[in-house]
């Protein structure tokens, strides 16, 4: 659990030091607390691998401001309560220059008071709106929010002339936050929530809830808000009950695993997701094309596994920090913080980032692409 990954291997840095004396300066310390094991590992593991891979890449390319990067990672085991302790250690013992991570919203919020007090730039990899609303001086985040997902889905529903939505949300933190945001922003978008059902993340059957929805007159679409294997079971159950309503999923299932687990039942399902998932299908004119294809290829080459949007969040966080350090010309924490807040037109895997003093995420709805699953593959709707 307390495994410290020192990516700047002693041998490597020794070779670098002897080769070019200008790199002898102290390394820039990148601290991170991720959920590399435990239930959130499917998020945290690709994030941890991505940070490791890109710290090595940055170092191989000569480092940042002529200094090497050194990654200090702690695994909170998906236990939000532990994240706080690790953040403390990063700030007080490891004396890091920046903290990336907090795989989950819970872990992130546990670290927020410490980074605010310790005045250290902090880029979270978790989803919920609460992280950046209200804006906190030192806290930034890279992933899209659940509110954006809901808004993107509403916009697509409107285009198809659908207004009555049945909501099925997971009782996990992600699902409940999604449920809250969906209900909160529905009225403004002119969408009526006609059913509000829930299921547990480890439930093996959701047909009871779906039977209820099936019996409701006037329902025009179903939205499932969940992560991991739960939505796949809901999808299979929808097919089993012969429900043919338009079916939306959240960005939480934007990984190959969902298609693999749901099989034929996933045909026609729509969901908002980052461009990374459809890297190959993007038109060449798309500004994100080179970034997402580059990252997808590097990740696949290094780890022989499919990329997920989650690893992309870690890539974005590291690169936003690197970009800010270059512009600030120093690792001075206050100056780097100001530089992160001034990020404009940064093209990441999650979208084009334009931070503002009151917007510490910097993404708009264009960062989400509406995808449809056709023939077992992701395709772009618009």
């Amino acid at each position, binding site marked *: 659990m307390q495994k410290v990954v020192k990516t700047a291997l002693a041998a490597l840095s020794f070779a670098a030091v002897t080769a070019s004396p200008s790199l002898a300066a102290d390394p820039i310390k990148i601290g991170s607390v991720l959920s590399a*094991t435990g*239930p959130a*590992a*499917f998020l945290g*593991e690709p994030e941890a691998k991505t940070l490791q891979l890109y710290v090595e890449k940055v170092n191989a390319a000569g480092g940042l401001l002529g200094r090497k990067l050194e990654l200090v990672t702690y695994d909170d085991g998906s236990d939000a309560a532990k994240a706080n302790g690790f953040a403390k250690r990063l700030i007080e013992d490891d004396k890091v220059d920046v903290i990336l991570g907090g795989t989950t919203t819970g872990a992130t919020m546990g670290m927020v008071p410490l980074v605010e007090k310790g005045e250290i730039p902090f880029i979270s990899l978790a989803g919920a709106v609460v992280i950046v609303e209200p804006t906190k001086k030192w806290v930034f985040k890279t992933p899209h929010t659940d509110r954006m997902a809901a808004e993107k889905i509403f916009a697509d529903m409107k285009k198809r002339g659908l207004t009555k939505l049945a909501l099925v949300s997971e*009782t996990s933190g992600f699902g409940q936050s999604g449920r809250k945001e969906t209900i909160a922003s529905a009225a403004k978008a002119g969408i009526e929530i006609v059913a509000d*059902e*829930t*299921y*547990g993340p*480890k439930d*093996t*059957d959701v*047909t*009871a*809830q779906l*039977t*209820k929805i*099936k*019996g409701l007159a006037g329902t025009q679409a179903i939205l499932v808000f969940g992560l*991991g*294997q739960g939505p*796949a*079971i809901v999808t*299979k159950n929808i*097919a*089993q*009950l*012969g429900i043919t309503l338009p079916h939306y999923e959240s960005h939480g299932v934007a990984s190959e*695993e969902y298609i*693999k*687990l749901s*099989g*034929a039942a996933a045909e026609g399902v729509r969901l908002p997701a980052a461009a990374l998932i459809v890297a190959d299908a993007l038109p060449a004119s798309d500004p994100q094309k080179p970034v997402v294809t580059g990252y997808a290829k590097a990740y696949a080459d290094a780890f022989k596994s499919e990329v997920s949007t989650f690893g992309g969040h870690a890539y974005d966080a590291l690169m936003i920090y690197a970009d800010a350090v270059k512009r600030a010309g120093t690792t001075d924490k206050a100056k780097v913080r100001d530089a992160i807040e001034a990020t404009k037109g940064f093209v990441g895997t999650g979208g084009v980032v334009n931070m503002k003093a009151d917007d510490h995420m910097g993404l708009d709805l264009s960062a989400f692409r509406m995808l449809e699953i056709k023939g077992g593959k992701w395709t772009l709707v618009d």
Partner: protein
Amino acid sequence: MSQFLQLLFSGLTVGATYALSALGFSMIYNASGVINFAQGEFIMLGGMVAAVLTASGLPLPLAVLAAIVVVALVGLIVEKLAIEPARDADITSIIIITIGVSMIVRGVVEVTMGKGSRALPHFSGETPIALGGATLLPQSLWVMAVTAVVVAGLAVFFGRTRLGKGILATAHNRLAAQLVGVDVKKVLLTSFGLAAALGAVGGVLIAPIATTSYDAGLMLGLKGFVAATFGGLGSGVGAIAGGVLLGLIETMTAGYVSSSYKDAVPFVLVLVILVVRPRGLFGLGPSERV
């Protein structure tokens, strides 16, 4: 009406999976008085091994058989390495050992087979069977039928065979059983191997419907334990009744009340049952068990 029928089918499917899990608990409880908290992991392991084998190209029936054999072996190894050395310890210590075993199994699977979820192909296709306006997956019939066969098999095993009777006798009074010539060591070993195999059977049956992952055993084990307590620990009929009732109550609550209370209602009910009838619906007092 069709809604009720659909809820009934759903409840029976879920209930049958709980029942299979509950049977494993009852089995080991019968043999040793121990509640084996690693039972859920046996279920998970069965599903995972079968899924990994089919993914690597093995035909489904072979993968299923191999998974059951592998998990039964794991059950034997667990008994030999973890339970047997501690057989003179009191029951509580052994129960705690089983919790440790469950963590080890989960960890090993996480490291060797990955953290992602896996699905197993359905045994006889995914085309739902329509019945009175409701639908039922062929796989659900598999789950229910196999559960019934297993229960019948266990009834014969415990009631008619020497080994089965030996297991019951050992559970009742180890010393007396030993005196009349029952090989007590073998009894415990057999029951662990059987319970593990039983778990694996449940795991491969459920995996096509529910998908499986390294941490799936926790919930299945918990629900199985609740079902077993509900029906009466150590009773085969009780395990089945407890499982099916639990499944039905859950789906009916989700269907007619609210899915938010789905998990709470059965637990509250179990508490009530335990207060009113502490040994569960079909459980027998210690003196009546043999």
